[in-house]
């Protein structure tokens, strides 16, 4: 091995059979003398599989064995899939089902054996001679760059676009206008009339509509609500019956109205409520009602603490003080929860005085105009 840096006549690396391993061809033939002598590469050490044909054969058999075992486990997976039903014998071993265990083990082992086989191959049998690869300048040689620019200019010249601005401009225009069909198609991907911005400002609530318990659909007697109660409620129109006469809604429309009309009702000491100006008559004896939809990005929220009157949004930790017009006291929400003005009807059930007086849920561009 040579330590002479200016010469490359002698190779520092030889293949197992003694033939010189070539340097990376990108290395410049002539190198400047370096201030610190290149120590070169340490002598190559061989693996047992390189020096011992028996070891080589053995490694070959091991690798093939792993791949064959991987095949066997993959087949066993299929067998297990058809022989064990999920749900049968769900407690075969340590609380795990026979199906779960066999499917997991066979597929896992199959993948693992393929992986170990490949690693074994790479470490035992693949050629492992060292290569020196010198650093190159990042940019292309100057002549290449000049040639490219020359070719580009020649092309532009021959196309004559520079001389014919009409052709150039109409071509650019044609490509630009091609964007319009795409915009129109994307726009109509929105469900129904979601682009009808005016509808975002309205919900299904209307004057006199009863507040009913969500899921159950029963109306709520104001006199039966106790201090500290939290009721997850919905508009009566979401539970149409012959008696109440609301029309049946279906599909996307039903989902949208359900999502927009969701409310939470809480009851607290009337003295604890500090109403906004104009909202003094929006509550019934300490019963106060807000939209359930967070004003940040629209998660439904009902993590309510009766002691603090705070409601927390689990998505991004926005916290609202329900005693103080649902003012935001923490988190990314920018506006208080919209409040639903409520009253009692002549039978004593809670009803809405009107729809929300502002759009519920997350902000959007046209919100301020509604």
């Amino acid at each position, binding site marked *: 091995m040579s330590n002479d840096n200016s010469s490359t006549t002698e190779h520092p690396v030889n293949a*197992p*059979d*003694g033939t010189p391993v070539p340097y990376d061809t990108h290395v410049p033939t002539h190198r400047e003398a370096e201030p610190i002598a290149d120590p070169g590469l340490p002598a190559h*050490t*061989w*693996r*047992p*599989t*390189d*020096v*011992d044909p028996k070891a080589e054969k053995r490694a070959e058999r091991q690798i093939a064995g792993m791949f064959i075992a991987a095949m066997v486990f993959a087949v066993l997976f299929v067998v297990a899939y058809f022989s064990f039903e*999920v*749900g049968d014998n*769900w*407690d075969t071993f340590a*609380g*795990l*089902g026979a199906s*779960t265990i066999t499917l997991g083990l066979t597929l896992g082992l199959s993948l693992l054996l393929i992986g170990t086989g490949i*690693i074994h191959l790479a*470490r*035992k049998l693949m050629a492992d001679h060292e290569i020196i690869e010198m650093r190159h300048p990042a940019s292309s040689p100057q002549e290449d760059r000049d040639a490219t620019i020359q070719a580009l200019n020649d092309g532009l010249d021959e196309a004559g676009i520079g001389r014919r601005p009409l052709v150039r401009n109409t071509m650019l225009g044609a490509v630009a206008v091609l964007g319009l069909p795409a915009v129109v198609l994307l726009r109509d991907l929105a469900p129904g009339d979601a682009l009808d911005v005016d509808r975002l400002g309205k919900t299904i609530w209307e004057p006199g509509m009863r507040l009913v*318990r*969500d*899921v*159950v659909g*029963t109306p*709520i*007697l104001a*006199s*039966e*609500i*106790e*201090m*500290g*109660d*939290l*009721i*997850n409620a919905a508009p009566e129109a979401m539970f149409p019956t012959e008696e109440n006469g609301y029309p049946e809604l279906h599909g996307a429309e039903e989902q949208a109205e359900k999502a927009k009309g969701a409310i939470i009702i*809480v009851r607290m000491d009337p003295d604890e409520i500090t109403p906004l100006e104009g909202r003094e008559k929006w509550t019934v004896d300490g019963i106060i009602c807000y939209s359930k939809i967070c004003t940040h990005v629209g998660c439904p*929220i*009902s*993590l*309510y*603490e*009766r*002691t*603090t009157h*705070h409601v*927390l949004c*689990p998505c991004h*930790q926005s*916290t609202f003080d329900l005693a103080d017009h649902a003012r935001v006291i923490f988190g990314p929400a920018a506006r208080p929860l919209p409040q639903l003005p409520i009253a009692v009807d002549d039978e004593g059930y809670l009803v809405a005085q009107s729809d929300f007086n502002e759009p519920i849920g997350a902000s959007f561009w046209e919100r301020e105009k509604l």
Partner: protein
Amino acid sequence: MRLLNRTAGRLSRHRRGPLAGLAVLLLGLLISGSLYTVFSPAQADTQPSETEQVAKGKELFLASCSFCHGQNGEGVPTVRDGYQLGPSLVGVGAAAVDFQVGTGRMPMAQPGQQVQRKPPVFNDEEVAALAAYVASLGPGPAIPNESDYSIDELSDAEREEAISRGGQIFLTNCTACHNFNGAGGAMPRGGYAPTLHGVEPRYIFEALLTGPQQMPNFSNGNLSPDEKRDVIAYLGSLEETPEYAGFTLGGLGPVSEGLFAWVVGIGGLVGAAVWIASHTTRSKKSKVNA
């Protein structure tokens, strides 16, 4: 017994027989037992009357609860306006006492963000006495009967229906804090919603009725007793449902699952990669040219 023998032996050598100690012991028990039957009131097996219970409850209350809740259960306010050392117990009802004392939450070990469940301090009789006393302070929810929360008397079809309706009610009203699986979850400022697994149906019913700590009420005007029973039936069915997929990791959802995937899954892969690379395949032998 040997001690007894020795003491007797000092008095007389005749009393040193091997069975003398036993005989003395039996005689003593017989005498004290008959004296007790003669002098004690003959109502040991009847229920204590309500007045007696209230009186006993008041005694226990004065000893264990009045420091925070006041000598008459009126609550003790602190200097900070609106905050209380212990809230007033007038009108909280027997259900609240049965829940708080029966689950060991009260008496409180230390003030803090959250009162924790711990082994109860009082036995059933004492809890009943305390409940009777607090119930006498003002009208409030009573301790529910087993028929209020049990679905044993329903037919199979009704039970099925109760469980599925209970599931919907649970997912609408309870999951926000107690997690979809009833495993509990974190609340603001260090609080937490406790797990509902393994909680006796009676205590779930009482918690719904009375709204302990930060939890809102689900009074009978909010969720009817039948709806509460359905929620409890659903929680019972959750506990009976086998975990087909194996480990639940606490049923906490993405938090524990993510933690497991990152720490055990990716950590294991990194460890395996390090292990593979740290072992050399080199040999000291050199190549022999054939």
